């Protein structure tokens, strides 16, 4: 019996969410009295994979097949399933990312496993049951889910636990070949188009997020959001009405039907706080609301607030961050 952790890599680096997942997997392995092995997908370097020892991983399997650089659902599923069979893994842990959810759902059928996505805590194993707490109702609630299958797959929500870093510990990196055929790459992407990110911070991975709503009055004013985000090294986001009128691209829309995020800090500027918006952000650890309307419903969900004009307040915040740095 072992725990298999799926780590996603890009441009040679292990993604931040995968460092969290590696920590989660190592802690599950410790609970079960076993060790955690990782299987890496994407473009990785051996040195960076070996550093997964800092998160408690003992061994990393890596297939250097160049066509695995970009996500290919069929190929990734076969690769991970082969690794799971080889290692006799009873528990698989992935990130609750687009890749993790896409592969996890196919793996659950292939490996006849119970699957919980959106997990927010380590599992509980009291009373012989394996119970995972997960987000439900678009962040408005949680559910404890019993995974009754012999095999279990858990997709962990980003920022649900902090990645541990035990300096100096290394994992053994082992070459792994899943014997993939051309047919496994039939759904490979033909083209990959990256979008520009403010300050280079990807929104789903961001620990700090600055977000704007209709109160920003127009896309020409977004530099105020971007200036603060840049100073904080934060990601930028927006409410649904803003992306609906194309002030900002869809991939920045957070909320019930957009991206659900749980950063350490969410700063909402000129957003009144409709229940659908709150659903996407209310698992943020600290929420700051800036709005000139003191009756804005978002203040009820906020930890800190400023009743004031965003055009006056945002430059002051940016200046204060720069002063602090």
């Amino acid at each position, binding site marked *: 019996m072992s725990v298999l952790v799926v780590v996603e890599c890009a441009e040679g680096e292990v993604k931040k969410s995968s460092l969290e997942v590696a920590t989660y997997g190592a802690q599950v392995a410790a609970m079960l009295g076993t060790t955690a092995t990782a299987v890496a997908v994407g473009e990785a370097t051996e040195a960076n994979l070996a550093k997964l020892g800092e998160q408690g991983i003992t061994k990393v399997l890596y297939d250097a097949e160049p066509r695995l650089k*970009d*996500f290919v*659902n069929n190929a990734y599923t076969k690769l991970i399933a082969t690794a799971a069979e080889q290692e006799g893994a009873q528990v698989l842990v992935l990130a609750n*990312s*687009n890749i993790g*959810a*896409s592969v*996890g*759902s*196919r793996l*659950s*059928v*292939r490996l006849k496993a119970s*699957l919980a*996505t*959106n997990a927010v805590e380590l599992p509980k194993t009291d009373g012989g*049951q394996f119970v995972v707490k997960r*987000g*439900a*109702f678009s962040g*408005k*609630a*949680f*559910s*404890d*889910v*019993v*995974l009754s*299958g012999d095999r279990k797959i858990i997709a962990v929500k980003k920022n649900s636990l902090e990645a541990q870093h035990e300096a100096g510990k290394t994992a053994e990196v082992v070459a792994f070949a899943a014997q993939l055929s051309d047919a496994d790459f039939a*759904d490979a*992407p*033909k083209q*990959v188009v990256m*979008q520009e*990110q403010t300050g280079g911070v*990807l929104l789903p*991975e961001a620990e700090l997020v600055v977000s704007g709503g209709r109160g920003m009055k127009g896309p020409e004013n977004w530099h105020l959001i971007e200036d603060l985000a840049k100073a904080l090294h934060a990601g930028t986001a927006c409410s649904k009405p803003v*992306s609906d009128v194309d002030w900002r691209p*869809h991939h920045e*829309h957070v909320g*019930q*039907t*957009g991206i659900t995020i749980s950063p*350490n*800090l969410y700063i909402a500027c000129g957003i009144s706080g409709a229940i659908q918006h709150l659903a996407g952000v*209310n*698992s943020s650890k600290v929420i*700051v609301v800036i709005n000139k309307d003191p009756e804005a419903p978002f203040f*009820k969900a*906020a*930890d800190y*607030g*400023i*009743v*004031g004009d965003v055009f006056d307040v945002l430059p002051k*915040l940016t200046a*204060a*961050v720069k*002063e*602090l740095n």
Partner: protein
Amino acid sequence: MKFLVCISNVPDTTTKISFTPDNKEFNKAGVQFVINPWDEYALTRAIELKEANAGSTVTVLNVGEADTEPNIRKALAIGADDAIRVNAAPQDAFFVAEQIAAVAKDGGYDVILMGKESIDYNGFQVHGMVGELLGIPTVAPAMKLDMAGTTATLEREIEGGKEIVEVSTPFVASCQQPMCEPRIPNMRGIMTARTKPLKVVAPVGDPARTQVAEFALPPKKQGVKLIDAANAGELIKLLRNEAKVI
């Protein structure tokens, strides 16, 4: 081209969530149920593609008990041709996926579409399970879908960008913004929906692989600490020294 669009019946997006006293079930009292907003993208895009490709059909599929029929009729009013309801309360994602796969296998559908996830269970699982059960490709989440004969071109969201993917039918895609502008039914659609076929079938498959033991609401917030706008910089000090998040 035969499209199968899977819709789920979910609480209206403005619903304040509460549970039965034992926290075992969602409290449906006084709650309006709607077509899952993500599924509306799948439904509308299927209808647009049907209209652009003569001879195509759109079938709507729902796994649910009789109380979901008003929303199935709404999907028919929007423009689907017929509907199938698998007569069972959804137990978990795998149970739902098995029902969809069974219907899809019997019906010989070319394209199976659904929303990225449902806004109640937020599983983001069913699309992949259906694809694996049928042994066909899955593209998730898709932001754009075009068809040319039996080849589909899709834009798939990835972190920080998008990928252009080409697949041949049959395939499964889960849909999200900005795929299309969801339609609302017009009066003519509502009238014709009443006479469109709605077939009810019995569930198949294995028991669910997950069970909800308990629901819980997030802890209540302590209340907002207000900072004077004239002294806005003070907020940054509080975020560093008190909240310790920057």
